């Protein structure tokens, strides 16, 4: 099986294949941070469940949040003892690759889609993400031409599917 993965690149299937053998790339602190965040969330949910009114509306949340808090505490203790290295974590080079993409997505979702219009923002983000992560040369005119053609073709399909077929009214913003 290791031979199989050696020849392939990342995908969910490969992650599944590798999952039992993959060595963690994060440090003990790397595993502790999510454990602390989950514990904080569980504590917050439990606090709200036990303090908000009407109490009857929070009966089930109390039950679930109490179990969640116990599990989050258990998870935190295991992480603090270095026994919670499940999951690969995220390597530094992966952070460098995904952060620009996540920021671009966030700008699209929280700002551009509403203010520039759904189609204008989607076209821009498709083109930027494709161009930014495309292994093809950024100096070749041919590559840029292909990027423009793929973007226009894909967005035309999206327009046909959502606006013409499903009649979805999208926010128009400044542009379209």
């Amino acid at each position, binding site marked *: *099986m290791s031979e*199989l993965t050696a*020849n*392939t*690149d*990342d*995908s*969910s*299937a490969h992650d*599944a*294949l590798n999952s039992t053998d993959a060595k963690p790339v*994060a440090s003990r602190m*790397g*595993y502790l941070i*999510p454990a602390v965040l*989950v514990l904080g969330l*569980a504590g917050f*949910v439990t606090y*709200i469940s036990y303090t908000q009114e*009407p109490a*009857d*509306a*929070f*009966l*089930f*949340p109390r039950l*679930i949040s109490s*179990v*969640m808090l116990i*599990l*989050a505490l258990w*998870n935190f203790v295991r992480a603090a003892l270095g026994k919670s290295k*499940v*999951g690969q*974590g995220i390597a530094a*080079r992966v952070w460098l*690759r*995904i952060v620009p*993409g*996540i920021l671009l*997505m*966030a700008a699209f*979702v*929280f700002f551009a*889609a509403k203010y520039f219009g*759904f189609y204008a923002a*989607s076209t821009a*983000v*498709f083109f930027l*993400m*494709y161009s*930014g*992560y*495309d*292994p093809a040369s950024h100096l070749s005119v041919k590559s840029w031409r292909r990027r423009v053609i793929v973007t226009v073709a894909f967005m035309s399909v*999206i327009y046909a*599917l959502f606006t013409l077929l*499903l009649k*979805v009214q*999208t926010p128009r913003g400044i542009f379209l």
Partner: protein
Amino acid sequence: MEFLQYFGGVFEPTSFLLLLGGTIGGLILGATPGLSPTMAVALLIPFTFQLAPTQGLILLGAAYTSTVAGGAVSAILLRIPGAPANIATALDGNAMAKQGRGAEALHISFLSSGIGGVIGVLLLIFLTPVLAKWALAFGPSHLFWMAILGVTVIGSLDSKSFVKGLLSGCLGLWLSMIGYDDIQGAQRFIFHDALTGGVSIITALIGIFAIPQVIDMLAAGREKQNIASIKVEKHSFIDSLALTLSSIKSLSIGTVVGSFIGLIPGVGGQIAGLLAYDQTKKLSSNPESFGQGNPQGVIAAESANNAMVGPSLVPLLTLSIPGSPTAAVLLGGLLIHGIFPGGDLFDNHPEVIWTFINSMLVGQVLMVIFGIAVAAYAAKVAQVPKAIMASAVLVLAVFGAYSVQQSMGDVYVMFVLGVGMYFLEKFGFSAAPLVLGLILGPIAEANFIQGSLIANAISSPAQYFLTGSLNLVLIALVIASILWSFFSTQKENRAKKEANSL
């Protein structure tokens, strides 16, 4: 034989076209590495809003069936499993393709998928009504424990850490409580306007399954994909059919293992394929030929992963407990069309459910025909650069989430949940129990409240929820699922320590 009455519905023009479209589209999506069957079905749900419930379900069912089978194309031709369910297929399928037997491998892969799939759907047809009648005897306390069992089983089996698996389930249950409480009319956990209406299941499904895959594709950066497809030589279909039909042992192991695994909530096709492959290899007179291009390996793996599809819907349709993450997404699809699984499903919506199940049977045949026809093209789609796939999935996810209620709030929720799930998954948390918690949360809470009201009238809540033979069986199963996961985690850790010390 009630299902025979509803066969005509499958062949109505719109339904049949959707079945055809879902099958062909699913085959292509399944062949694309990085696009899991679960994500494909989640992204398709918004397209079913405009359709009648039966038609919407036919589309989703066809996509579910064919994405699992389509994953074999890239596993055989590119040595990249399109989905985790096709990992075992790649072992011998790719070796066959390298020996110039790519067409034969594709033929037997789709034929065995079809045979396994048909047997799986027949099990669904004959088991579901029996279980549904049995489920009619369930009261609120039993349904509450069933919902909790669904979360604990998937949390225990689908995760590599039982604590993190159960925590994921609890997170899902909590997400399901956000919004207005219909009974008390109170606001719960509404921290932002986008959460006023609660977390829409479809929005959450799209975010949880699509956004992590987008980020995963971005994690490859600008590295060139070294994917070289193997040229497919022509091969006699009749010979492949004869080989498949004569492989009774491999087909039997595959379908039995796949069907059994499908019935167990949360286990999924990956395990089915690998387990069937392993058993076939062990029982073979020539085990060393496995991994070197033995067709029996492909037949066992593919018949198992498609035999799993039908039975995975049995607990879903009767008890609201999905047998796989993709079945959990299908449950979301059922709920948005106002169809609530349970004991009375076959009494309330016989036409919808039987037409849907029948379409899965017809879909198996279409999958075999079109699978073989489009395999070569599907392999080309698998070579589409990840930058395009990531951008396309992102835009589809945003449009899909927006179209649920035409609300930007849904897009925000989808994105936040998706990014959060990416980071959680990297640190061992699991999407399947979280999704199941989100879906089963309202069922668990409604039955908990209803049960509490009954309990206050006739006895105490403790007596109502903790006594009675069925309650005790369900509680025992909840505890057993947790303990099994706990001890298997301990065993795995000990094995790792021993391996490290050697």
